[in-house]
């Protein structure tokens, strides 16, 4: 008796499967696509029909949107289109850099405190202290101590985000270290650093990647807030935050000075959050639909 257990997939089935994949990963595709567009804008800024975003031209100030000035000009006659496009650079760079810095240091602290009880006791109290201060306030306070620069902004925002990653990683590590495969590794004579790197670390990647997207989104917002209140990047660098801040005074006359950079900001944050939600669903083993 010939029994075909696995029938070759028909064209229709393949199509159906492909459609199912798209539907399942819609938020990853949408979020990832939008982020790719934003990154493309940031990288290709000089070739997207922009002019020097800092070039002043008092004679052409507060122009409405036109063929020459797509988004109009601001109170100092600078081209708003160029400023918004270049602003994507600052926002995205800060977002990605903060996410990377917070994740790397959070991973390190989380792994260490998940495996050493007395370091854990000290470290977690420090993290609790940091977490009790709202991240924007902490960043403002840190910025008040130093001069405005890209590195300082990244550092100030990242410090506020480190405790979140640390707590997450520590929780995962505490769960994993009770797993039989970690006990098996101990019994097999594996040293503690090797256990952390070979057995624990790979299992923390999925939740940390998801967390990284949320940190990236919140860092972009925090950077905009800092720039808006003048505690962020130096005013010579255009960012969505300081474009909005400068447009605030004349917002009733030229609302696009606020609305356009705000739209870019919201879209970017939305895209990153969509990606994060999609990744969380795709990486969560309890929701995994294809084992």
């Amino acid at each position, binding site marked *: 008796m010939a029994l075909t257990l696995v029938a070759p997939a028909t064209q229709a089935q393949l199509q159906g499967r492909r459609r199912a994949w798209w539907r399942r990963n819609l938020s990853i595709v949408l979020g990832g696509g939008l982020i790719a567009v934003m990154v493309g804008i940031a990288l290709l800024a000089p070739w997207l029909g922009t002019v020097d975003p800092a070039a002043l031209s008092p004679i052409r100030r507060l122009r409405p949107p036109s063929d020459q000035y797509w988004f109009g000009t601001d109170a100092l006659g600078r081209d708003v289109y160029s400023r918004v496009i270049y602003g994507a650079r600052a926002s995205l760079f800060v977002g990605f850099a903060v996410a990377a810095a917070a994740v790397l240091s959070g991973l390190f602290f989380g792994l260490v405190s998940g495996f050493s009880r007395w370091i854990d006791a000290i470290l977690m109290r420090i993290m609790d202290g940091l977490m009790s201060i709202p991240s924007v306030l902490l960043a403002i306070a840190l910025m008040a101590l130093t001069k405005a620069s890209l590195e300082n902004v990244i550092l100030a925002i990242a410090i506020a985000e480190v405790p979140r990653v640390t707590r997450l990683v520590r929780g995962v590590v505490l769960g994993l270290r009770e797993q039989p495969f970690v006990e*098996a590794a101990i019994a097999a*004579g*594996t040293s503690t650093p090797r256990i952390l790197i070979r057995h624990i670390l790979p299992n923390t990647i999925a939740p940390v990647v998801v967390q990284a997207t949320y940190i990236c989104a919140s860092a972009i917002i925090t950077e905009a807030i800092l720039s808006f209140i003048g505690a962020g990047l130096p005013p010579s660098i255009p960012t969505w935050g300081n474009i909005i801040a400068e447009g605030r005074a004349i917002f009733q006359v030229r609302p696009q000075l606020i609305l356009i950079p705000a739209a870019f900001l919201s879209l970017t944050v939305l895209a990153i959050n969509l990606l994060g939600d999609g990744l969380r669903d795709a990486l969560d083993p309890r929701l995994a639909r294809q084992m």
Partner: protein
Amino acid sequence: MTGPLLQVVDLKKHYPIRGGLFGREVATVHAVDGITFHVDSGETLGLVGESGCGKSTAGKAILKLVDPTSGTVRLMGKRIDGLSRSAMWPHRRDLQVVFQDPYSSLSPRLSAGEIVAEPLKNFGIATGAEARERVAWLFGKVGLRPEQMAKYPHEFSGGQRQRLGIARALAVRPKLIVADEPVSALDVSVQAQVINLLTDLQAEFGVSFLFVAHDLAVVEHISHRVAVMYLGKIVEIADRRTIFARPQHPYTEALLSAAPQPNPRLKKKRIILAGDVPSPINPPSGCRFHTRCPYAVARCKTEEPQIRELAPGHQVACHLRLPSAG
């Protein structure tokens, strides 16, 4: 080497239960409460008991996966309880473990070959191509195909995963393997295969097993001697034939009578115990079994029975069994 391979004397593992504002110790779980036994070279000691009687904790305390509260553990005459992690390290070559759950005991993100090669690399036994060769050989020994080395644990069945766990334990050629219910997560036909594999490996390599289990049929098949645990204590130890034919402790009797009998014509006395296992937080006074023992007398409530030798190699902790009566 003189003396037994593994000698455990009065081993205790208590877990504090902390509560209140400053984490005061409010109670203690007496998971393992003073057990004494030994395992000889090349033999299998079955450690049986109900769920929660402390048999797995005993295994972990011997392996130093949990720190014993008190008591001594000697492996080949050397004390290994109380050693620090680094001081324990060289002994791990002689003392390996196979876990109950073949799913969670293998790192999900390492390949099967990497998992089995890990102890080889840790102890510098083999590296590179040599390690690969050794792992391929081990795969053959446990009935897996060397081509499966590149696969990941989730691509194996439960029985195959347990074979991987056995290959990992065997890699460093240990003297003793603590097998913590190695077959209870497998279905019956696969159980038989894994049990036969263990006995074959014992015949070939002379490895000893401390075989923790609750399934009496499995224990009867694989063990040379059997120790019965109840609420953190060993109540009876004897060689397999004696304990299954002439159990002396009332608990062993009841446990054996509860095991399913393959021959339906064979009617036997079924002892049904009343009540549940008491809590190990507040174990009963005197003999721990007195609350459920059908033969209990007044003395059982007050005085704890010491484990005594009834006949050579047959120890029982019960007031009602006197050496002469054995």
